[in-house]
């Protein structure tokens, strides 16, 4: 069979390929790759144009705490997401729950901003969750805690939004597991939870890792959710600090230094891709 690969392309084919790629490549290069490189460069320059590390020391001294806080929030969210999606993905793989998959696909189609606002309304001190709890009569409405403008609100919103994509990736992996393997484990007397955590998850370590890397990056870069939920004083998500530096301080050096710090934290996805390419 005739195999076409990159090395046997004729000049005409190469030109045609390049022409087809040109418009999309131009847009992404000019409006993402170039500004991305500029942000790297600008983070090492003072406002007078001298090469310096001052931006980093300033960014870390003011926002170091927020940076760690952001990593912590994203880590906790990721952990919660993995536990929830593995459990649900496992249940869907092992049993028949017709509506469940559909229900958990919904977050994929709800915009980030809407998730932020919904969580705010749901978890606010006088929000719908506390109202619902007070109907039961078991709680005194005025002593119920507020989750909305706290770390818990952020975690809830980030996890909620990523439930859809997380479950899809998890389920795709689980469905590729050989049925006879599961039968054998069942025969040995493994219950559902044991099947999920001792068989499905370890067998799909790679796919769970991909899902973790992708969602961690998306949580880290999420700007609209912290913008909608805000904070009640104390630490806040690093993207909010970046926005503040640009819009109110117009200090691009520090803003870009923060940006580079977030690139470093989200390098996982890029490394994963390069690993996949070099393996081939």
């Amino acid at each position: 069979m005739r195999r076409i690969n990159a090395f046997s392309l004729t000049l005409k084919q190469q030109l045609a390929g390049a022409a087809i790629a040109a418009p999309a490549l131009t847009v992404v290069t000019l409006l993402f790759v170039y500004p991305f490189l500029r942000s790297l460069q600008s983070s090492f320059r003072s406002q007078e144009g001298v090469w310096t590390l001052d931006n980093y020391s300033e960014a870390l001294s003011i926002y170091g705490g927020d940076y760690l806080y952001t990593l912590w929030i994203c880590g906790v969210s990721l952990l919660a997401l993995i536990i929830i999606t593995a459990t649900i993905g496992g249940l869907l793989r092992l049993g028949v729950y017709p509506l469940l998959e559909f229900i958990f696909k919904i977050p994929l189609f709800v915009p980030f901003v809407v998730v932020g606002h919904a969580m705010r309304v749901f978890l606010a001190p006088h929000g719908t969750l506390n109202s619902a709890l007070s109907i039961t009569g078991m709680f005194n409405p005025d002593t119920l805690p507020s989750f909305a403008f706290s770390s818990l609100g952020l975690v809830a919103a980030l996890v909620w939004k990523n439930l859809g994509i997380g479950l899809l990736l998890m389920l795709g992996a689980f469905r590729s597991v050989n049925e006879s393997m599961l039968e054998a484990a069942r025969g040995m007397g493994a219950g559902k939870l044991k099947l999920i955590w001792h068989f499905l998850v370890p067998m799909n370590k790679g796919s769970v890792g991909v899902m973790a890397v992708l969602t961690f990056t998306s949580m880290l870069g999420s700007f609209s959710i912290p913008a909608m939920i805000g904070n009640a004083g104390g630490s806040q998500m690093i993207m909010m600090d970046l926005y503040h530096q640009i819009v109110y301080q117009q200090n691009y050096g520090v803003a870009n230094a923060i940006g580079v710090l977030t690139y470093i934290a989200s390098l996982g996805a890029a490394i994963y891709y390069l690993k996949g390419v070099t393996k081939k």
Partner: protein
Amino acid sequence: MSKPLEVALLTAPMSERGAWFSTLRLTRRFTIYAISIFMIFGPLSSLLLWSVAEKWFWPNPFPTQWGFKYWQQAFEGKMLSSLGLSFGIAIVVSIICLVITVPLAYVIARNRIPLKHIVLLIFLLPQAFPQLPVFSNVMVLMYRWDLVGTLTGLILIHLVGALVFSLWTLVSVFQSIAEPLEEASYMLGGSRIYTFFHVVLPIALPGIIASTLLVFLYSLDEFTGSLLIGAPYHITMPVFMYNAAGGYEMQVASVTSVLLMIPGILLLFLLQKYMRSEYLAAFGRV
């Protein structure tokens, strides 16, 4: 399940065991559904409630006065122009994406492009790194090119993310089409162009529809770029909502949220068969 219970079940007579197991299963099933529905629909239903609450005093569990006052208000005010703007931009972005990425994704899927992995890496970057730090630098560039606050600028910034989204899903769509079909067409004398339009495209159509709808939704929901490049001259729906929520206009923000949510939910319901998991989960896989 604890050990004694298991032992008890195993030693019980057959019929009793069956009853035990089925009640256990039913309760478990019921609990799983109840928790799931609460988790997903709890936050969403609060939006609906707030959008029809004219007055809602704490600690009443339900709105004190119901009505569509804020829906009317929303449709009379500036929101309608934001709604139109958002849909207009989303349609334009979807069409541009379709024209640009369908041929490109096909060429990549069939390895007919030089430096394929570098091209794909470039298209991975916007998905692999946070948008805000990069878009803030785009804003500086766009000020220089007089694009801030223009529709062109807004469409371009939407295109960055949309192209990436569209390309990755389409590459996996084209990769799922068997190559021998095309080879058969070449054998029978079909040219490359003829084969693409008469063999490949019809098979890929469901995938292309799915990808276009995802791009449409992406553009409709885009917030970061719209806030930096479009506002305050062109306010898209998400930015409008952000402003309304910032001003503590709970009802207006909730009405906007519900409106923003409708297209996605509608597409999910109507086009379930197109939304195959492998298209949605295509990211980062080569």
